[in-house]
Every structure is written in structure tokens, then in C-alpha cells.
């Protein structure tokens, strides 16, 4: 195997989402191919007219909730009437609906909820984008950032419905842009404000606070410092957390009533905002409405600890469980020198010899593995269902990490666990058993693994007793599992 041929495999596996059939793509310099993907028009965006914006999505969720509530009330009234008891005047008790809520049918209680429907459509769009990318570097970066700034669909219907839109609106436009812009877009997105409870956070000295409606919730402020920017143990204090929490009080989601703007959109609610100056990391932020928090976030984005945190995670994700400190230092410097230009950071990673020299010791996480399997057979699933079930079984349900720290894709041990490996075998066998009209296994192996395939893997695939078994062995081979 020549150096260039080995580099192509790394380009596809370490930086991308796996090769697709058609060896023509292996011509030229793989580093240049990665850079070309970074500079392609559209960047990480998904441009599809059929995917609605977050406000439109949340309005559908609100409306559905409203209809269900009316239906429950109606059924309650009917039951009371059956017992000969006077029904309360439901309509008189409820505020008028902004939409003309049609009388809901009883069957609607069994229909799939809008949140789940949006989730499926968004999941399908993400899968298609990943399966059709030339190499998949930009999609890998998208997944990295989406996981860095994760929300979980298990939190609420708002998160389930808007998780995909969150990725499209807050992550993708900035994957090759500025970190500070992504940070602001994330912390002001309704999905994040719901996921980390900031939508309910109220400054004690605000108008709402004086009305004693509720109080401060520092969840989002804490994770902003601990996970999103500087990283745990990097020098910020509890006081910094609390002060940042005050600063971002009032960052909320417009409710169904539309009092603060378009229902389902981000809003700055001055009535809930702590109207005072605050100090974070020794920097004073005078009261300035929403701009006060935006200024604090912009400064956190420039903290040297943030550059180190991001560089370390990036190297750990792409290159090795134990990141090479010199490589981390070079990327952190790029981050600082470029003022958090994430495109520059990605180019620096792709151009660094150390990122190509490290052995392929990491294991593909379930998302990468699932997408790579589809790509290897030149497929893009027309139904996201099987891929989503596979991700569930492999312990990486889409947009549903166990906590705000995201999926633990930092280590081989996390994904190549005994149960994980067994499940990989079961799923590979099932997947391979459903493949129709694929090339001969040995030809496919050349296309997908190329010269990096070991003699043992070649032999195992060539000697398999059925095509299905050969495909399963190809997917399960060390060269396919590792990157």
C-alpha cells in the first residue's frame, strides 16, 4: 500500500463517513479533497424547503397540545354528564384559542404526535445529508458540534420536535464559521433554552421576580461554562455561574399566546430579566438587556481555556483517545489566532501531519458506523426507521444523549464494549441479510477498504460462505470498525 492510498482510507474513515462504491474518488491528494469539501458551497447547511423553522414547528406542537386538552375536557364533561352531574362550563374557563380549534376527534388521541413526526423528518434529512456527502468531513464536524452543544429529545416535546431544527439553525450555519456565533445561536435557541431550563429562569429583582412567580435557574449558565466554553476545572467559580445565570435571565421562548412575538421563537423577556450589572470572570457587564448576555458569551468564546477545551475535544474525537498535547496546542493556537474561526480550525486539523500519523485505533461510534454501512453499499435509506433502531440498540439514540455532556464517544471502551460488539454483530448480520443487488463482496471490499484491507480480512470476506456473510464480515472487519 502506498502512502497516498493509505491516506485515502484515513480521509474516508478518520475524517469522513466511509467510502462509497466507485474508486474514482480516490484519485488525487486526499488532503486537498478534504479541504475542497470544507470550501464547497453551502457548507454544512441543509437547504430544504420542506423543513420548517423552529417557530412553525413549535406552533404545531402547541396547537396539538391545545387540541388534546380540549378533547380531554370534553371527555371529562361527557363522563360527568353520564353520571348525571352538571358539567362545568369548559369554554367559559378557558381563554379563547388564537386558532379556530376544530372539535377534535377521539381518534386523534392515537395519532402520532407532531413532535415525533418532526423528529422523523429531521432524522431522515440528517441521514440523507450524511449518506450523500462526498467524503463526509463536514458532516462529521456537524455531528461533533451538535454533540458538543447537545440537546436531548427525551427532555420534552419541545426538544423532540425541535432537535433537528436546532442542529439546522444553530449548529450547521456556523460549523465552518465563527465559534462565538455558534455559541450565541445555541444559547438563544428555543431547544437549548428548554433543554437546560433557562426559559423558566427569572431574575429575583425583575418584575416577574417581584411577583414571586419563580426564581433563578442556573442550569444553562453552568453548562455554558462547564461544557460549552471553558470546560470543567478551568478556573471559573460558582460565583461566575450564578452571575452568568442572572445575565441570561429573560432568554426564553415565546409561548402559545404570542405576547412576546411569534409563538415558538426566541424572545428576550425584559420582565423576567435581572436588571442589574453582573461580573463574570472578573469582567463587569452593565445592564443592557439581551446585549448584556451576548457580550458575556462573546468574551467566554475568547477565553484561552475555551480554545484548549475545544482543541482537546476535537483531537480526542477525530484522532486518538489520548490526545497528542502538541497537536492540541497547535489547534488551540489556531483557534485563538483566528478568533475562533471553526473553518480555519478544521483546515488546520486536516493539514496537520500528526492527525494523519496516528494509528487507526479509535472505533467508529454508532452514528458513523451506521452511516458508513449505508454508504459502503451506495445506499441512502428511504426510511430512517431501521437506522434509528440501530442507533438505539447500539447505545447512541439520535439527539438523545444521556446528559448535557453528550455521547461519550471519547473512548474505544465506550463503544467497543462487550454488549456493544455483540450488538454490532447482530445488526451487521441483519443489515447484510437485507442487502439486495450489491456488488460482489471482494469487489466491494476493494472499493470500501481499498488497499488498507489486511490479508486476513480479504481472506475472510473472499471465503465467506454466502454473500450475506461476506457483507457482514466486511462491515465487522477491524478496518471498517476502526478509524
Amino acid at each position, binding site marked *: 500500500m502506498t502512502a497516498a492510498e493509505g491516506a485515502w482510507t484515513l480521509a474516508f474513515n478518520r475524517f469522513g463517513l466511509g467510502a462509497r462504491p466507485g474508486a474514482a474518488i480516490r484519485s488525487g491528494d486526499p488532503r486537498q479533497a478534504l479541504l475542497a469539501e470544507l470550501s464547497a458551497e453551502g457548507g454544512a447547511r441543509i437547504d430544504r424547503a420542506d423543513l420548517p423553522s423552529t417557530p412553525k414547528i413549535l406552533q404545531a406542537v402547541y396547537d396539538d397540545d391545545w387540541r388534546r386538552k380540549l378533547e380531554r375536557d370534553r371527555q371529562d364533561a361527557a363522563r360527568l354528564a353520564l353520571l348525571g352531574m352538571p358539567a362545568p362550563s369548559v369554554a367559559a374557563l378557558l381563554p379563547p384559542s388564537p386558532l379556530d380549534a376544530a372539535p377534535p376527534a377521539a381518534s386523534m388521541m392515537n395519532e402520532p404526535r407532531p413532535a415525533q413526526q418532526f423528529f422523523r423528518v429531521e432524522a431522515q434529512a440528517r441521514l440523507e445529508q450524511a449518506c450523500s456527502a462526498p467524503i463526509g468531513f463536514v458532516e462529521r464536524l456537524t455531528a461533533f458540534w451538535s454533540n458538543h452543544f447537545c440537546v436531548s429529545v427525551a427532555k420534552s416535546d419541545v426538544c423532540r420536535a425541535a432537535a433537528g431544527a436546532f442542529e439546522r439553525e444553530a449548529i450547521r450555519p456556523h460549523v465552518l464559521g465563527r465559534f462565538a456565533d455558534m455559541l450565541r445561536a445555541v444559547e438563544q435557541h428555543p431547544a437549548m433554552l428548554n433543554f437546560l431550563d433557562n426559559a423558566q429562569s427569572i431574575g429575583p429583582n425583575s418584575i416577574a421576580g417581584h411577583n414571586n412567580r419563580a426564581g433563578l435557574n442556573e442550569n444553562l449558565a453552568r453548562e455554558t461554562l462547564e461544557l460549552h466554553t471553558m470546560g470543567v476545572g478551568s478556573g471559573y467559580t460558582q460565583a461566575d455561574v450564578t452571575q452568568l445565570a442572572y445575565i441570561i435571565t429573560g432568554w426564553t421562548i415565546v409561548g402559545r399566546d404570542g405576547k412576546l412575538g411569534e409563538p415558538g421563537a426566541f424572545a428576550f423577556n425584559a420582565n423576567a430579566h435581572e436588571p442589574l450589572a453582573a461580573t463574570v470572570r472578573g469582567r463587569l457587564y452593565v445592564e443592557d438587556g439581551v446585549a448584556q448576555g451576548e457580550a458575556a458569551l462573546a468574551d467566554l468564546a475568547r477565553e484561552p481555556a475555551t480554545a484548549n477545551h475545544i482543541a482537546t475535544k476535537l483531537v480526542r474525537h477525530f484522532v486518538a483517545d489520548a490526545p497528542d498535547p502538541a497537536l492540541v496546542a497547535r489547534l488551540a493556537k489556531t483557534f485563538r489566532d483566528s478568533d475562533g474561526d471553526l473553518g480555519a480550525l478544521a483546515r488546520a486539523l486536516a493539514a496537520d501531519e500528526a492527525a494523519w500519523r496516528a494509528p487507526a485505533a479509535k472505533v467508529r461510534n454508532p452514528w458513523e458506523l451506521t452511516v458508513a454501512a449505508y454508504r459502503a453499499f451506495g445506499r441512502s435509506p428511504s426510511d430512517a426507521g431501521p437506522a434509528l433502531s440501530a442507533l438505539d440498540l447500539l447505545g447512541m439514540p439520535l439527539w438523545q444523549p444521556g446528559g448535557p455532556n453528550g455521547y461519550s464517544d471519547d473512548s*474505544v471502551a465506550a463503544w*467497543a*464494549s*462487550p*454488549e*456493544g*460488539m*455483540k*450488538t454490532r*454483530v*447482530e445488526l*451487521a*448480520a*441483519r443489515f447484510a*441479510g*437485507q*442487502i*439486495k*443487488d450489491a456488488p*460482489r*463482496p471482494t469487489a466491494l471490499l476493494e472499493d470500501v477498504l481499498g488497499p488498507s484491507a*489486511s490479508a*486476513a*480480512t480479504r481472506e*475472510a470476506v*473472499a*471465503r*465467506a*460462505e*454466502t*454473500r*450475506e*456473510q*461476506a457483507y*457482514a*464480515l466486511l462491515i*465487522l*472487519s*477491524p478496518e471498517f*470498525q*476502526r478509524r
Partner: protein
Amino acid sequence: MKASDAWPHPSRRHILSAAGATFAAATIPRWASAAARDPRLVVVVLRGALDGLSAVAPIGDPGYADLHGALALRWDGPHPALRLGDFFGLNPAMVNFARLYGARQALVVHAAATNYRERSHFDGQDVLESGMPGPGQVDSGWLNRAVAALPAGDRVGGARALAVGATAPLVIRGSAPILGWAPSGLAAPTDDLVARLMDLYNHSDPALAKALQAGLDADRLANRQGMDALKPGGDVALLMRKAAEGAARLMAVDDGPRVGALAFDGWDTHANEGGATGRLAQLLGGLDGAFAAFESELGPRWNDTIVVAITEFGRTARINGTVGTDHGTGTVAFLAGGALAGGRVVADWPGLRVADLYEQRDLKPTTDLRAVLKGVLAEHLGLSAEVLARAVFPDTLGVAPMKGLVAA
């Protein structure tokens, strides 16, 4: 062709008829006279290349015991072969097939192969199932084309053909409509896949090997606790029987499928193949259970049924260094069903001296498997030789359908 149950000399080519039944070339096919016939045909593809010499052993051939060594079946010992006459012994795992053979409802074709002479499983299966002269030419199988070629209004052609398994076997894919059904658990990884993967991991990735082994151990523990019934590597014989039972029940229905196809994996016995007992015997026991399931679940329909079990090629006559056999050429086909003129081993026996072997290593194929399949399609489903040679097995005008397989 002539028949005899004597064996004059191992090198002399001969047709064997172990049960002593002679069959004439001029047999009048049943379909020609009985309009009320309602035939069923099932094709079982044994993927991985079945060792015909361990399944139906030529114990009477003086070369056999030496060549097949530790795997050779014997007339004596703790697990004696089941007698199919004086020359051939059936693997003792196949008691039901032996019983059917005695009732003249089963027969074996030996030293058979398609025209494929290379040794790739995938290409061999392509030729076996597509019925084309070479691999990779079409995406339809000969069984589907046979159904499609039946005249309009035919009972067989009028019902959808049945494909058993997560994917339809190639043999039944094509333009004629098919019905799919899979018993749960069929798609689970087999012991064989897991064993091959563990080999690969042990060779090139000990960390993955260790993790997978730990996962499998945990799984076995769970199985012992009765926590999971149909899990990977589950009872392979049980899976075969379940697949056959389900297929038979569907085919027993009055308006059910008349033609079906199944595929059983796992026959690629390169190491520790076993003889009268062991891995291959377990698989053959599973196949035997499948035959029995078809017989019992089809009920009265069994009398109109033929089940054919075929494999892409055979294995080396000589055992290898890991007490298994490698890819070879000639092998057996099993036929069972109440519609058969059974109780016979059909073979033009090539002998097992080194000079008799194909490329000095494999049982030499002396019967074209396609002639057998064409014979079944002609006599059982009523397809003409012309249609068979043109549409079903293209370019096989020179391969005449074998006659007399179906009971008159």
C-alpha cells in the same frame, strides 16, 4: 440408463438403485394424465457447499475410507451410517430421510454439480440459483422463471410463490409475484459468522476479540437462564425446522403458494467438520427435521409434493489439515416428497481413485444437476423441454431433463 443394486467394480460407471427399483425412461408423467393434480415444489438452497461424501457416503468404494479419513462414515461403530443399499450410507443424523427413502418418498442424486467449475461460493450460488450459464448475469432465479413460464390459469402459476427468509433467495426472485415470510430469529447471526469473525479478530484485533467474546459469554449466560430464546447462534436445527414448518403451513392452504424457496446457511465446513457426529451432522439433522416438518405439516398435500435440497458445489474428497474439507465440485442433491419415484440413489458413479477425481481432488461430477432440476420441473409442473431450455435454464438444449423422477 440402467439400474442395479450390485456394485461390480468401483471404477466402472454405473447407475445405482439401492432399493432395487428399476425405472424406465418411458415413464408416463403423472401430470400428463391427472388434471386434478395440484403439485407443490419446494427448493432448499444449502449455502456454503455441502460435503456430499459425508452426507451420503460411498462406503462401498474402496477409496473412500482413506480419502475421507476421520470424517468417513462407517457401517459399524457407535454411529453407523443408515443403509441406502450396499454401497451408499446416509449420515446417521438423517433418520427421517432414511425412513422416507424406505417408503420410496426420497431419493439422492450423487456426483452431481451444475456447470460451474470454479470454487467461489458467491459465483457458484449465482449459477445454482439463477440457472444461467455463468455467474452475475441476471437477478432472477430459475424457479421464478419456471413459475412465470406456466400457462395462464395454471394452479401453480396462479398462486404467489413463497420466499422464506429476511431476503428472498435468488432462485425465487424475478417477475412472477412472490410472497415473503420469515420465522423470527432467522436473521440472527449464525454461530458460523461469529466463529469466522472471532478468527479474524483473534488474528488482527485482539481488543475487539476480547470485547466480543465477553459479550457472547454474557449472552450464553442469559440463554442458560432462559432469558432469551432465539438469540444469535441459537439452535440451528430448530431454526431450520421452524422455517420449514412455517413454509409448509402456508403451502398447505388451499389458496396458498404452490412453490417455495428457503436457504439454509452454514455448510462451509473447512475445519472440525465432524462425520457421523459433530457440526455437519447437526446441520444435516436440521435439514432432516425440515424434511420431516414438510411431511407432517403439508398433511395430504405431501403426496403431491417434492422438496429438493441443492448446494452450489461439493468439497474436497480428501480431508484437509484442520479435519475439514475445502471447496470442491461434485456432491449430492436430496429429493423428498410423496410425488417422487424414490427409494433410489441416482448416480453415474465416477469412483474415488486419484485418477477418477476432478482435478485429482474433488468428486467428479457425472450428473448435471440442471438435468435433475429440469426433470422435476418437466414431470412435476409440466413444463416442456423447450421452455426449460430457453427460459428457465437458458442455453441448455444439450442438457436433457432427467426422466422418471416423479412417480407415475
